[in-house]
């Protein structure tokens, strides 16, 4: 091989390397470190953040869809005190009152929290696991994971004794996959006098008649009977647990001096269909100038059950109900196309006979 060929070979080789080097992106080594709050092996000690004390459980809110036959949730309990501490860990069902306050009562069927006790050094973290299986047919489970430090107990001989316990809770909003009955019901709309002259606080009580928790959204439009709109209140509230009723705040509204009666159109977003349904609730007041004005549907409270779309409630979305009209249209089109194709295939399979003479075999 002469020198020229050697030169050509070398040049070709380096050119190939150049092309390859341009085509292949520079290899960048990456490593990702994900620090999930649920991770923790009990041996990791993190210096307490400045100013942060006490015992905490993370995450403080667990809202997720679970496999009802194999629930497994992970939390981390941290001791941010400058001393070691023992804590108790329990799991209790959530209850909700009219003002949204959560209460913790009763054991949670099918689920347990482990370990039940923890000994944490100052600055230490430890994992806690909630696991088990929900009772068959349970659409959702709402519970609190309660972490309570052991504290000194009151000496029993002290007269007039009040013992104090403190705990932190992580709230569990667990639902199972699938369609569940969903419904909200307006129970009343109230205008409560405030300190201001003819200024009222607007609120509405909604009840969750479905099987899973909701975050109600809606408005209250106040109008003169047969007259103009006087004001629109935006209802604000958080989570509403199934079976619970909660008063949602709509802010304040000031009535004009001449206003004696109002009607309230309460528009709530249907959780099943996301449509907005409006329920008109007329009102009266024994003393128009004093109030509070309690607006209730004529004929008494609206029907319970979540399927009444008339007198103040609505709902739906259960199994077999609430199928969007688009689905029916699509099914109809599909059937029509199938029929047309079948007919076409039939016609093209057998050629059309035009001869009317005797059969050749006759």
């Amino acid at each position, binding site marked *: 091989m002469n*020198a*020229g060929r050697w*030169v*050509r070979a*070398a*040049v070709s*080789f380096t*050119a190939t*390397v*150049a*092309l390859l080097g341009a085509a292949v992106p*520079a*290899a*960048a080594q*990456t*490593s*990702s*470190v*994900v*620090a999930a*709050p*649920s991770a923790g092996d009990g041996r990791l000690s993190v210096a307490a953040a400045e*100013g*942060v*004390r*006490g*015992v905490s459980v*993370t*995450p*403080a*809110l667990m809202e997720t869809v679970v496999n009802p036959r194999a629930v497994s949730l992970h939390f981390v309990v941290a001791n*941010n005190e400058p001393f070691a501490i023992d804590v108790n860990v329990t799991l209790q069902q959530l209850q*909700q009152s009219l003002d*949204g*306050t*959560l*209460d*913790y009562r009763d054991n949670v069927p099918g689920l347990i929290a482990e370990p039940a006790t923890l000994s944490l050094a100052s600055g230490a973290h430890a994992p806690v696991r909630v696991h088990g299986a929900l009772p068959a047919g349970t659409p959702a489970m709402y519970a609190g994971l*309660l972490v309570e430090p052991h504290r*000194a*107990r*009151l*000496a*029993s*001989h*002290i*007269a*007039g*004794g*009040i*013992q*104090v*316990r*403190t*705990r*932190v*809770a*992580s709230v569990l909003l667990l639902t199972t996959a699938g369609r569940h009955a969903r419904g909200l019901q307006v129970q009343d709309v109230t205008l409560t006098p405030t300190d201001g002259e003819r200024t009222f606080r607007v609120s509405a009580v909604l009840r969750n008649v479905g099987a899973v928790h909701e975050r109600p959204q809606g408005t209250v439009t106040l109008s003169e009977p047969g007259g103009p709109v006087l004001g629109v209140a935006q209802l604000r509230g*958080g*989570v509403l647990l199934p079976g619970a009723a909660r008063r949602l705040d709509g802010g304040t509204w000031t009535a004009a001096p001449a206003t004696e009666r109002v009607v309230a159109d309460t528009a709530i977003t249907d959780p099943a269909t996301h449509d907005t349904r409006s329920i008109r609730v007329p009102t009266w007041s024994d003393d128009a100038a004093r109030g509070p004005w309690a607006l209730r549907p004529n004929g008494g409270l609206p029907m319970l059950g979540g399927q009444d779309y008339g007198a103040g409630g609505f709902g739906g979305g259960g199994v077999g109900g609430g199928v969007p009209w688009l689905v029916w249209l699509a099914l109809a089109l599909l059937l029509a196309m199938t029929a047309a194709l079948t007919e076409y295939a039939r016609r093209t399979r057998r050629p059309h006979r035009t001869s009317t003479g005797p059969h050749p075999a006759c």
Partner: protein
Amino acid sequence: MTRPRVAVTGSRLALLVAGLTAVAALALPAAAQTTTVTGLVGTSVSISTAPSTAVSLGTMALGANLASAGTLAVAANAAYTVTAVADQAAMTKWDGSAYQSGALTTPLALVPTLSTGAPVASPIAALGTTAQTLMTGTGITSDSVTLQLQQTLLSSDPTGTYRTVITYTAAPAL
């Protein structure tokens, strides 16, 4: 015999330049390496300062009896609530190891007095066995309230030693 000279044509020159460029590129320091770090911040609520573990009303007199219940401080990175609940509807007779029949007529009241940060604290006129909201906050500031317990004693209340247990619970707001 003379060696044949190598004729470098235009195309060969281009290839030579490309090759030398590739060699130079390979000789340069490697591209900067990057490390991606990700983290997840979960909601967290803690009682950073707990109220007094035990409160003694002493020998109560007729009328209102007040006692300091300490300070309750909350550290959170999300909206939170603190509730209070008692294990009895009212302070109940206590024999040293168990409750006995007989309770004071008036339920215990819990009154937040001073506060720091931006909590919304509400007095609880009648502490009972249903949880009631004591304070709420946004979690933006570290909040604390100073608490006072008030027990009204009536002449019809029988003598004896009375006891109750108050539980404060901090949780994220729903």
